[in-house]
């Protein structure tokens, strides 16, 4: 096995690729990810590659064979807690990043404690009522925390129908707005990743004070 680069070497590599302003902003950010399914597991990997070094991840589920078609896990992780499997994947990308894990079901009573200190939280649940619960709880009880939400990414084709909109002052929505029950093909990796890419890109864009 090759030697793992040092933290300074990794830092230099990212700094050389980005400007100091971009790298310095990403490395200081604190990003929450609620749900580690198709959206959350892929967003976590993208943000870690980009240089986000503090992630707060939450999910109560375990990796299942039906997850492999779109979620960022491998067959040898079936049966692992998703928070643990995600941590393994992220530490392979950047062993020096800080991953704060919450192996728990998110509710209105624990969400403010878990995500209250984040700059941005990615809503990556699958059920519409759970999405609404998380978003309302954060917007009501965690002032200053912005939310990037995924809403509609099932099926195949129609790549350009997935879009990002800022709908409230602190709420950005990525997706095509079509329920998975109504989209032909169910949830599939490419289109889930297009939506996850919108969400991760929106996180970076917000941090840099840009438009989504």
């Amino acid at each position, binding site marked *: 096995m090759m030697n793992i680069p040092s933290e300074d070497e990794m830092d230099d590599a990212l700094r050389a690729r980005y400007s100091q302003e971009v790298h310095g902003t990403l490395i200081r950010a604190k990003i929450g990810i609620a*749900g580690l*399914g*198709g*959206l*959350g597991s892929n967003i976590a990997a993208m943000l870690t590659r980009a240089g986000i070094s503090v992630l707060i991840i939450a999910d109560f589920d375990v990796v299942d064979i039906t997850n492999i078609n779109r979620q960022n896990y491998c067959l040898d992780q079936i049966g692992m807690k998703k928070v643990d499997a995600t941590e393994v994947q992220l530490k392979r990308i950047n062993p020096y990043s800080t991953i704060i894990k919450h192996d728990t079901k998110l509710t209105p009573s624990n969400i403010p404690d878990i995500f209250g200190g984040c700059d941005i939280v990615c809503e*990556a*649940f*699958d*059920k*519409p*009522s759970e*999405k*609404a*619960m998380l*978003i*309302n709880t954060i*917007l*009501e009880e965690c002032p200053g925390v912005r939310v990037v*939400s*995924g*809403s*509609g*990414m*099932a099926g195949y084709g129609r790549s350009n129908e997935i879009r990002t909109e800022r*709908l*409230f*002052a*602190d*709420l950005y*929505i990525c*997706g095509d*707005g*079509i*329920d*998975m*029950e109504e*989209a032909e093909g169910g*949830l599939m990796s490419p289109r*889930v990743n297009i939506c996850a890419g919108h969400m991760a890109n929106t996180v970076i864009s917000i941090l840099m004070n840009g438009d989504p």
Partner: protein
Amino acid sequence: MRVNGKDLEPASRMTVEDLVLSVGHRPDRVAVELNGKIVPRSEYAHIALKEDDSVEIVGFVGGG
């Protein structure tokens, strides 16, 4: 009033919950902003809408 960028005449004594239902959403699957501020879910049935209000309703769909 303005609802998601369109003009709409509020029915008399229309609450936020009435409006959410009338535009075809389930109240447990939305977030609502009234005049730029999030409306707490516990207030949906109690806040009456006025002529000069501006409302944004976001409905969420399954998949993630």
